[in-house]
């Protein structure tokens, strides 16, 4: 009796998990399917699910009309650059707050997080003017800079929670063994924090890759990443669903593959400290 109840419960929760997973995944699936349709079929009602005329012409058009590779390269440089710089700043910052906290450490952490609560559009005009003055509009450096600053609070918070979990004794042992602070960071702390660093890096890459507000507002063509590339398919002449889908699929493909292979790290990273 009891076993049957358990089996049924497992079956129900499995079904529910699949259903929920499918709901979350459906828009992406729909987008990928639409990218292989003709423009007519893409907004046909009722929509055809699998039985339509499969075509790859949208991909060809997209590549012809705009330079996918240039935008992809911009995305890689902007997401990668901002992540690397953020980590270089965040590692020492999180280290100092985790291992030699002062009375104000908690306040500083909260203050940093509070900057994420402000809507970015609130500072769009001043940032735009500053960028204009310094010639940073539509430049990769400018985007790297703004995305790095935007994600820095989250990166510091994540690293801070990882570093907190590392036993102090081990760092003190390194100090007794004659390691300077720099060597302690390089030889002891960083290798021990690798799982944490990896998931922080991944999350930050994904956030920077998907960031649309600043990239859309501060870039036009030269430095435009894939987000701008997608947006260019929603034009005044109307929406080209199939081409938009093809562009979006191309834009998310790299990060989707990265996310797929690093699922374990991501889940561990996001639930770190929550589950013991």
């Amino acid at each position, binding site marked *: 009796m009891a076993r049957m109840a358990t089996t049924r419960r497992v079956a129900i929760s499995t079904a529910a998990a699949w259903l929920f997973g499918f709901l979350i995944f459906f828009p992406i699936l729909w987008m990928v399917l639409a990218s292989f349709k003709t423009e007519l079929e893409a907004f046909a009602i009722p929509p055809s699910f699998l039985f339509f005329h499969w075509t790859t012409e949208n991909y060809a058009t997209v590549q012809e009309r705009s330079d996918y590779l240039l935008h992809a390269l911009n995305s890689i440089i902007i997401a990668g650059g901002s992540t690397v710089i953020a980590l270089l700043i965040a590692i020492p910052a999180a280290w100092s707050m985790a291992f030699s906290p002062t009375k104000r450490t908690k306040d500083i952490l909260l203050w940093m997080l509070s900057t994420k609560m402000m809507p970015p559009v609130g500072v769009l005009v001043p940032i735009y003017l500053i960028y204009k003055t310094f010639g940073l509009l539509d430049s990769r450096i400018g985007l790297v800079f703004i995305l790095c600053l935007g994600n820095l609070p989250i990166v510091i918070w994540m690293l801070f929670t990882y570093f907190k979990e590392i036993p102090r004794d*081990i760092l003190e*042992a390194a*100090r*007794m*063994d004659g*390691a*300077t602070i720099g060597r302690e960071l390089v030889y*002891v702390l960083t290798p021990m924090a690798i799982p944490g660093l990896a998931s922080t890096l991944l999350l930050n890459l994904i956030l920077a890759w998907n960031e649309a507000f600043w990239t859309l507002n501060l870039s036009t063509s030269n430095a435009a990443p894939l987000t701008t590339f997608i947006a260019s398919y929603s034009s005044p002449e109307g929406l080209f669903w199939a081409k938009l889908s093809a562009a979006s699929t191309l834009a998310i493909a790299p990060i989707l593959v990265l996310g797929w292979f690093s699922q374990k790290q991501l889940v561990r990273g996001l639930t770190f400290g929550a589950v013991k």
Partner: protein
Amino acid sequence: MGQITLQGVQKSFGPVHIIKGADLEIADGSFVVFVGPSGCGKTTLLRLIAGLEDVSGGNILIDGKNVVDTPPAKRGLSMVFQSYALYPHMSVRGNIGFGLKMAGLPRDEINRKVEAAAATLNLTPYLDRKPRELSGGQRQRVAIGRAIVREPKAFLFDEPLSNLDAALRVQMRIEVTRLQKQLGTTAIYVTHDQVEAMTMADKIVVLNGGKIEQYGSPLELYERPANLFVAGFIGSPKMNFVTGELASERGAATIGVRPEHLKIEREGAGGWPGTIAVAEHLGSDTFLYVEAGPLGMLTARHVGELSLGAGDRVSLVPDPARIHRFDESGNALRG
């Protein structure tokens, strides 16, 4: 060389005074144990010597040189932590050799020294394992190996055996003592276990409430405790204390007699009469807890078996030469 001198060392965390002025002279090559109840400041004092905490006042001299402003890495000391604090991502070889690597020694010299240390500690078969693949005792030996390989001026041990089971603890206690004698390096060892203190130390520092109560050899502390605290802390089972008339007869506020210095006689043989509340028969020893009326509960130890049980009436006769006398403020009275 490893002579360590403390001059009026103080430490406070905010308004809390942890160490209230410690003066100590530790001779080169000696094994000194800091012992005291938890919270007495013994670990803090060790960390001050290590440099892991900054002193709030006073001087720490290593071989005559004041090191209060020297970072831990430059003090030439090595430390064994209670948690072992091994580097989890390094092999045993990497752990032991880390200090030498930091000192910039060439690789073959590091290997030679690591292998020699591993051989001393029977760790040779485990050199390429990670700490998580070792047992508690083996991890402890790696931590010790990491300390000895650097040939420091002194070893600092922070309750290193408290995570081991009883049998292993006794074995490691002997190994550590033997190793220290063999190397002739000064060692400071923190423990709350007075048996460890008595068996390992050349000299014991008894700490209480951030103050050094007494500094002397184990037998000095046992035979001539400076005050009530030391008298009660050193020795197991604890010394019996008696106040009131019996004490004032001897010109003291409190007198103390160790359980092994109370002779157990049949009732009416003089001494202090009482009823046995609990008798513990260990074979080698018999411990009697005797309800002695106005004197309270007294503990008596008899070497060998004694066929007495709860409810039996006995008389406890103190050895007059072994009665310790203390004044009102708890300090020992001599002569």
